């Protein structure tokens, strides 16, 4: 690389990193900087009088841990269910020609077309009658309905991108259909599946309305905090925002190598 190109490359890298990191940094600054710093203007860009106090107060709130557990349960269930149901649908869309495949692609998106606020009342009534009210599993079911279209369509694209010939070759060498799928297609598809899983996880983690209407005691973290967060003092919002961001970041970090593979960077 020549000097000028190198400069452009690195300034591009810096800009992209800043795009993501600066907001997170500012939130962290607000979360650790104490009550006064949250209101100071212009904002200081360094941390003065760092304190863990507001974050600690935040984590001491009654029920936060229970809510966090519920969130993890609901998000994990959503992730599992939407992949278990979505990936086969995606595989079918990619590998088989059947009447109505195009319509199915479109229809699957329709679950996102109904505003939850309108469905909330009948849905809650049904959930109460079915005994799913106030359980993380019930919340996960609704979130799965929301995440499923993405899971199906993302995996369909994924499986379509894996050459059929590889599978056929596996059959020739004596694999059954299932074995061929498990040994050849699945390893190639893993990064994409991880991406779909992240989508599902994040959709569930961030969803507020269904989670708050369908639960009373067993709220998810977002439902427990987000609605009240908007009405809380600024420094609490920073602390809360920080607490809500961290798990998603950790999760994405954990599956990052699958994502890198998806984007053509070899596993590292």
């Amino acid at each position, binding site marked *: 690389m020549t000097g000028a190109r190198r400069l452009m490359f690195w300034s591009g890298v810096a800009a992209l990193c800043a795009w993501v990191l600066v907001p997170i940094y500012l939130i962290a600054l607000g979360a650790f900087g104490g009550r006064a710093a949250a209101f100071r203007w212009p904002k200081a860009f360094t941390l003065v009088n760092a304190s863990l106090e507001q974050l600690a107060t935040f984590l001491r709130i*009654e029920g936060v841990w229970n809510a966090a*557990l519920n969130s993890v349960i609901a998000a994990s269930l959503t992730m599992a269910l939407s992949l278990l149901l979505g990936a086969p649908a995606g595989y079918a869309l990619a590998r088989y020609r059947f009447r109505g495949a195009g319509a199915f692609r479109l229809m699957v998106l329709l679950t996102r077309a109904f505003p939850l606020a309108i469905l909330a009342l009948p849905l809650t009534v049904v959930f109460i009658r079915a005994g799913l009210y106030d359980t993380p599993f019930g919340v996960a079911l609704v979130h799965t309905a929301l995440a499923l279209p993405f899971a199906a369509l993302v995996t369909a694209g994924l499986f379509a991108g894996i050459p059929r010939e590889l599978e056929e070759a596996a059959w020739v060498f004596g694999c059954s259909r299932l074995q061929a799928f498990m040994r050849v297609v699945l390893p190639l598809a893993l990064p994409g599946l991880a991406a779909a899983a992240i989508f599902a996880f994040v959709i569930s983690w961030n969803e507020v309305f269904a989670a708050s209407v369908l639960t009373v005691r067993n709220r998810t973290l977002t439902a427990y905090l987000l609605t009240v967060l908007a009405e809380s003092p600024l420094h609490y919002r920073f602390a809360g925002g920080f607490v809500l961001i961290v798990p998603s970041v950790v999760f994405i970090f954990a599956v990052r190598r699958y994502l890198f593979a998806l984007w053509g960077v070899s596993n590292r």
Partner: protein
Amino acid sequence: MTKPLFAGALALAAAGLLTASAARAQDLVFLSTQLRPIEEAQKVREVILKGAPKTTYVVDEPSPFTVRMRAEQEAGKKTVSLVGALHGELQPLLTFNALDPIDDVAAKVASRGIPAGLMELGKLGSGKQVYIPWMQATYVMVVNKKALPYLPAGADVNALTYAQLAEWGKALAEKTGSRKLGFPAGPKGLFARFLQGNLLPSYTKSMVTEFRSAAAETMWGDFKAVWAGVNPNASSYDFMQEPLMAGEVWVAWDHVARVKDALQQAPNDYVVVAPPAGPKGRAYMPVVAGLAIPKGAPDRAGAVALIEHLTKPETQVITAAEVGFFPVVDAKLPADLSPGVKLLAEGVARTQTAKDALVALLPIGLGDKGGEFNKVYFDTFQRIVLRNEPIRPVLDAQAEVMRGLIDATKAPCWAPDEPSTGPCPVK
């Protein structure tokens, strides 16, 4: 990696399902639309409910609250034993018959000294006691002491008029270089309450009937002058405590609970005063929250005990001291209130006892049309003040919308409008 991840997730989920639903299942659920912010909810759990029957305190925003109560009613299975909500939020619950009459509880708390007028509100016009008043609040003006030197000559900060407020705002803008008045006109702000509860009644002694009167026309003209001194960021303000603390705004109107933080933080920086007066008086809007028991509540006896606890004078005083909502019962506030709450208490007292005080009640009988009612005021404000449309045609058009709303709900007039037999007329 994916498979173990799934297996782990499933195992975790299964374990969680078992433990989470078994835990805390025995407590009484107290669902509230009030005292939602984290610090206040914590105060309720740790201080206010101390000594009460074991309770799980859960909060809901008003819209999921109604959906939930309705769903539990339709499904016939209740989880909530006690609800705490504003007068206007409890009314819709009565329309789908979700509230238990509690005349027995009313008899039990009769000795608390809750004013008869408030108890009457708690019947929601049904003839039976539906809720027991829980706490009250109102809207006040908070003034940063830095703004006091710029008061117009001869003006008393405790007895301002709208004309003086306009002059004050102008002086502040000229002398400080930025507009220092503030109203919560953001998406979650309560600005519509200012228009219907403070501004319009101060000029017309009416919230509905005189909506398009000549006096209302004068009022909008005057208010445009006030708005010239209002910070342009006002359309993003939800809670005035933040712009106050940031020093962006020096004179602000808001609900007491929404300015409390600023006062707690720096009690020496502020004074709390009554809202301004117009030609017909100093209108203000009292806000009442009540406690009600859903039909078929899982623990009615517990809920009754909780109501008794919450209406005890001691608890009421603690509530005032901790969260800044004021007693509905006959209770003397202690002298050692925290300075911030003390400021608020003084402001509320000044508002209620002002010589020209005029009570404007929260809209009654609009059911779920309350939001649209607020929108009429906000739209009128937007067209006249922000878009500078001519006043008369806008008032005429919006009065039609208002009439449609009132006719649809058949709501009779409420104070300060004169009582009506049919739907409240819009002249």
